[in-house]
């Protein structure tokens, strides 16, 4: 394998990892407050379509789009849409105490539906499949740091040539870790997820914390969708629910990181490596496997290589569950709703 290939692989892994890191950090915030949102993939789909729509209509309405407005408009549409989705999830599971699993799955169905429905319409508006592009906005999101991204040779190549959201989520992950462990609000939030009755008796507004966690968490996860649209697929759209598949990996990543956002900073990239591994299977092994499976084309084999990230996720799930460490467990009330007057 050549150096170029390794660099390409790392770059692809980081880009991929960034999508799911957003999803993972957002969902971790929600889960720390006791909400298991299986709607995260749908929320990310919503984030993707909202940012695309915002950028699309802005770019269409002006002759020369202003990069700063591009960024602001798509960011705000994304945040508003996904925060609303989080609010809806919160209203159903916190106030109406609906089953979190079913509500989450429904939210995924809803988000996927909305995204592909309007995605299809936008594609039609722009003249057919493959025609839609929000080039100006995408370019604004892919902007890299001056000097650092060009003058440092391989260091630039490896560390500094990603779109700026890559660094935002890294900072956010560490900030979230600090927030959980070192701040009073973080302590209160964790207590809500561990034991809401105790938090309640300690005078903490359980409902408010839960709502804040699922709304903000949802908005953070939604940015993963924005990043996917603007950076990962470079400002295009296709109705293939690609974001949804990544969304599920983001949910799995939460368990992998044992609810510690700092672990997401490397875990997400690791998932990225596994995801792209199918392009980097050594030729020798590939031809051996092709003979074994009596297959004539590499693309056929790649179907099987694409299983690797999911199988790795499964192995990780099993490994995490087989070692039982007290401080690595899920928040105790995860998945249950709280009613003060329950008896």
């Amino acid at each position, binding site marked *: 394998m050549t150096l170029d290939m390794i660099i390409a692989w790392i770059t692809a892994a980081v880009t991929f990892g960034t999508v799911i890191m957003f999803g993972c950090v957002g969902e971790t915030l929600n889960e720390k407050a006791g909400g298991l949102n299986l709607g995260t993939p749908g929320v990310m789909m919503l984030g993707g379509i909202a940012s695309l729509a915002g950028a699309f209509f802005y770019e269409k309405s002006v002759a020369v789009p202003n990069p700063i407005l591009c960024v602001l408009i798509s960011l705000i549409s994304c945040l508003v849409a996904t925060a609303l989705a989080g609010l809806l999830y919160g209203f159903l599971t916190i106030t109406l105490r*609906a089953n979190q699993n079913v509500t989450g799955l429904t939210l*995924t169905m809803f988000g996927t539906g909305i995204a592909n429905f309007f995605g299809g319409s936008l594609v039609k508006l722009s003249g057919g499949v493959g025609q839609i592009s929000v080039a100006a906005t995408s370019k604004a999101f892919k902007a890299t740091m001056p000097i650092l991204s060009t003058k440092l040779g391989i260091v630039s190549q490896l560390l500094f040539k990603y779109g700026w959201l890559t660094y935002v989520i890294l900072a956010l992950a560490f900030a979230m870790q600090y927030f959980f462990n070192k701040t009073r609000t973080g302590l209160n939030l964790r207590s809500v997820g561990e034991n809401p009755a105790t938090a309640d008796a300690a005078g903490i507004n359980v409902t408010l914390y839960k709502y804040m966690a699922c709304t903000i968490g949802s908005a953070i996860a939604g940015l993963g969708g924005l990043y996917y649209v603007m950076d990962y697929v470079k400002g295009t759209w296709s109705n293939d629910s690609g974001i949804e598949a990544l969304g599920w990996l983001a949910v799995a990543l939460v368990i992998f990181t044992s609810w510690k956002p700092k672990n997401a900073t490397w875990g997400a990239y690791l998932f990225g490596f596994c995801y792209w591994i199918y392009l980097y299977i050594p030729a020798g092994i590939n031809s051996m496997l092709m003979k074994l499976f009596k297959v004539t084309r590499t693309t056929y084999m790649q*179907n099987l290589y694409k299983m690797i990230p999911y199988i790795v996720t499964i192995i990780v799930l099993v490994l995490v569950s087989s070692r039982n460490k007290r401080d690595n467990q899920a928040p105790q009330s995860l998945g249950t709703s709280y009613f003060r007057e329950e008896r």
Partner: protein
Amino acid sequence: MANRQPILRIRKNEERSFLSKLLIKVIFIGIALLISALFINLVTKLDPLKVYASMFRGAFSTTRRTWITIRDTALLLSIAVGLTPAFKMKFWNTGAEGQILVGGLVTAAMMIYLGDKLPSGVILLLSFVGSAIAGAIWGFIPAYFKARYNTNETLFTLMMNYVGIQIVEFFVDVWDKKQSHSVGVINATNQAGWFPSIFGQQYLLNIIIVAVLTIAVYVYIKYSKHGYEVTVTGESENTARYTGINVPNVIIRTMLLSGAICGLAGFTEVAGISHTISVKTSGGRGFTAIIAAWLAKLNPIVMIIYSFLIVFLNKGAVQIASDFNLNEYASNIISAILLFCILASEFFTNYEVIFRHKEEH
């Protein structure tokens, strides 16, 4: 005055009568239809009533359409019924998609490899058994780790879906002679391994199979010793251990069953409906069925109603999409709105809201 009661308070009420629960459900389904109508009106500027008429046409306008609606209801129902034993055990099997796919894959393989070698009836029998086994294996793997290490089954089964998808992708490429990434209709000429028509009805066998499965699962859960073990295990693992139930065995046994039934749904889809295999064979029904099963409170008979409602909405949405030039994802949105409303209705059947009375202070 500072000393006020909260404006509204919530109180648990588990004693509502069946009728008032039903009324609440009906009201919320009405609200769902209203919201959906608003949504449709917003994007199409059309009269919602006309749109609902169009939806009804989509499901029932011709005899054939009616049969297809019933056929698809049966298919969704069979998956929901398959999920039932697992959910009764509180095992969140989100892997029906994968179980359907591998079941369908085995069926397609039987049709392709044995199509010109064995009589159609034998192929059908082998497909039946093979798809059940394949689905059972897909259920067994996560169940084993759940039983052994308490591994999170929701995500495990979900990942198994993607593994299944990739395997199907692989075989589609291998079986596809024209490199178009599509298998096409298998055995189009001799119809080997296809469901036969019964009394001239192409889809009657599908319906019979599902009807038998539904009744069997109903009896299994409610009246059998195994079903009793499943229920006890789902309610409390400690109680199960207390009464001598081998919990790991029950988890594995139940998921073998659940996976097998979902595998059979793949068999029905491939041999009885589409006669082809692709990643679209499962078509998201594995997830939709979760919702049907859960809304029916895991009662297979009630599932018939919810499966029908969901399929009806789907057919309708597809019809709207083609009538008014929208895309088919409108059906996802409408289904989701319905489900959100039914989820919300659960609250009002279990709790009551008390407003502050004016005369009090």
